[in-house]
C-alpha cells in the first residue's frame, strides 16, 4: 500500500496570525471578510505587523479594528486618504494603508482620494467595490451599474438621471503620481489568489518607497444585491467584471 504523502497532523489552514479571534459581523457571503483575511495574510508574510497602521472607513468595514491585530485609526466617511497622508508623512517608515468602500472612496471622498493619488503619497489603498452602499441598506453607489437595482435608483440606475458608474482605478491611473493600480475580485478561488498577490505587491511597493498604490477588489454583497452568495459570486464575473474589467491597470515601478 502506498504511503500517503500528506501528514494528517500538519496544520495547513487556519486563522491568519494577525486577525483577532472575533467573529466577523459581515453578512453570509460578503467579500469583506475575504479581503480582511488576505490583508492579514500579507502583513504576516511580509512581517510588517509591528509597523503597519491601517485606516478603516465609515461603512460596513467601520469595525475593521475589531478584526485586524494592528494599530488602526478611524477615519470619517471618505477621508481615509487624507488621514493616511497625515500618518504617513509623520511616520514615513511605517506601512500605512486605507481600506475604503466605493461610496467612501468614489463619492464623498473623491477629492481626498484623487489628490492623495496625485501627490503620489506613499500609501496603499484597498478599495472594496461592491457597487452598492452596504451599511446603509443598499442605496446607489457611484459604482452601481447601469440597469442595476438599488433602493435609490428606481427601478434601476438610469444614466440620464443618475449618471454613470465611475471607474476610479482607470481615472487614477492617468495621474502621474500613481504607481501601481490593479483591479481584482474576491469571488472565486483563483481570483482570491490573484487579489492576494496584488495586495502583497502594493505593500512591497510601499515598503520600497515607490509611491501611491491601490488595489480595487470587486466584492460581492449578496444581502443588498438580493442574491444567494453563490449567485452573487457569479454576478461578479458575469456582470460586474464586464463594467469593471479585472487586471493590472497601471504598474510603473519608478522610485518616487
Amino acid at each position, binding site marked *: 500500500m502506498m504511503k500517503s504523502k500528506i501528514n494528517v497532523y500538519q496544520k495547513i489552514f487556519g486563522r491568519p496570525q494577525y486577525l483577532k479571534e472575533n467573529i466577523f459581523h459581515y453578512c453570509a457571503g460578503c467579500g469583506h471578510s475575504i479581503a480582511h483575511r488576505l490583508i492579514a495574510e500579507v502583513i504576516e508574510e511580509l512581517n510588517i505587523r509591528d*509597523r503597519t*497602521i491601517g485606516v478603516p472607513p465609515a461603512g460596513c468595514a467601520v469595525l475593521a479594528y475589531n478584526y485586524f491585530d494592528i494599530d488602526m485609526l478611524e477615519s470619517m466617511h471618505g477621508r481615509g486618504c*487624507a*488621514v493616511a497622508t*497625515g*500618518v504617513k508623512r*509623520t*511616520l514615513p517608515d511605517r506601512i500605512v494603508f486605507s481600506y475604503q468602500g466605493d461610496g467612501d472612496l468614489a463619492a464623498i471622498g473623491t477629492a*481626498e482620494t484623487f489628490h492623495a493619488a496625485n501627490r503620489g503619497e506613499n500609501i496603499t489603498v484597498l478599495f472594496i467595490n461592491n457597487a452598492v452602499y452596504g451599511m446603509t441598506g443598499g442605496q446607489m453607489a457611484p459604482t452601481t451599474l447601469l440597469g442595476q437595482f438599488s433602493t435609490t435608483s428606481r427601478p434601476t440606475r438610469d444614466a440620464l438621471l443618475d449618471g454613470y458608474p465611475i471607474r476610479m482605478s482607470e481615472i487614477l491611473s492617468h495621474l502621474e503620481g500613481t504607481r501601481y493600480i490593479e483591479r481584482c475580485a474576491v469571488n472565486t478561488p483563483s481570483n482570491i489568489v490573484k487579489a492576494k498577490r496584488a495586495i502583497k505587491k502594493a505593500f512591497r511597493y510601499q515598503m520600497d518607497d515607490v509611491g501611491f498604490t491601490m488595489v480595487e477588489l470587486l466584492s460581492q454583497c449578496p444581502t443588498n444585491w438580493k442574491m444567494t452568495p453563490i449567485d452573487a459570486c457569479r454576478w461578479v464575473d458575469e456582470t460586474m467584471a464586464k463594467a469593471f474589467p479585472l487586471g493590472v491597470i497601471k504598474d510603473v515601478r519608478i522610485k518616487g
Partner: protein
Amino acid sequence: MQGNRVIGEAAIRAGCRFYAGYPITPQNELTEYMAENLRKVEGGTFIQAESEIAAINMVLGASAAGARAMTSSSSPGISLKQEGISALAADELPAVIVNIMRGGPGLGNILPAQGDYFQATRGGGHGDYRTIVLAPASVQELADLTMDAFDLADRYRTPVMILADAMIGQMMEPLVFKKPEPRQYDDGYILRGAGQGRSRFIRGLILDAIRMEEHNWKLYRKYQVITKKEVRHETFKTDDADVLIVAYGTAARIAKGAIKRCREMGIRVGLIRPITLWPYPADVIKRFSEKVETFIVFEMSTGQMLEDVRLALGGAGIIHFYGRPGGVIPTPVELARFIEHHTKNSWDRGSQ
C-alpha cells in the same frame, strides 16, 4: 511682524511639525509662511491640501501619529473643517485650528468680523463636545496664545481654536517670542505601529449606547476640569468703573480707545476682556455685577457673546449691546458716543 506670519513662527517654535491648509483670505500669509519655513525644519511637513476638509483630516492623522499639528482658515473654511474638529474631539486628539474671521454668513467678505463666536464656542460640529477657544487682541498675544494652544491641546488632548479676525491677522506690531515650554504630555495614545506589543485603535464610533454615554460623560468631565482651570481674562481700568464694557479681540482694542474718551468726558468706564471664549469667564463678570450696574457688550457681530454675558449676569445689572457686523470696523468715537448715550450722566449733560 504681521499677525498671520507670527502665528506660523510661534507654531514652529512651539514644535509644530505638521501643517495642512487651503488658501483663503485673510489668512493666506500664514499658509505661505508655513510653506516657506516648516519644510526647512527637521521632520516638518507642509501640505497644501485640496480642501479644508482634507486639511483637518490630515491634521487628525498627523496628530494620531504623534506630531504637533495645526491647520488654519477663515470663516467659510472653518465651517468645512467642523467634521474633522468633531472627530478630533471624539478621538481625544490634540490639534490647533486657527480661524482668522471674516464677514459672513455665506461667502460674506474678507473684512474683520466676529460672527463665528457661536460656531467656535458651542463646539461647531456635530455631537456633544466643546473646543477651547483663545481670542488674542494683539500680535504679541497671537504669538503667546499660539504657543499656549499647543500646550493646552496636549494637556487635555482636545482641539484648541485660536479665534482672531482679519484685523489682527493682517496688522503688524513688534513682539517678543517667549521661550516655548517643553512638550509635556502622556504620549501613550500615539499610534506608531503595534511593534511587538498589543495593537491599539483610535475611534469615535461607539455603537453601544451605554458606552457612548460614558464617553460623552468622560468628555464632559474633561470639559469641567478645563472650565475650572483654564479661564483667562484681562481687566482694564475696572477698579473705579461705573460702567463695564465686555469685548474680546479687535473689539476690545477699540473699546480701550473708547474708554479713554469716556473718561475724558467724566464717565468712569472699564473693560473686561475674555481671553478664553470657551471656557468663558462668567464668574468674573458675575462678581463685577456686585459693584457695577451697567454693562456694555460690544462685538463686531449682531450679538453672540452677548448671550454668554446674559448667562453670566443671570438677570443682574443692565446690559446694552453695541454691534457692527459685516466687516465694518467701528471706531472708538462711535462706541464712546453709544456709552455716553446709555449712561445716566449723559442725561445731565443733555446729550443724546
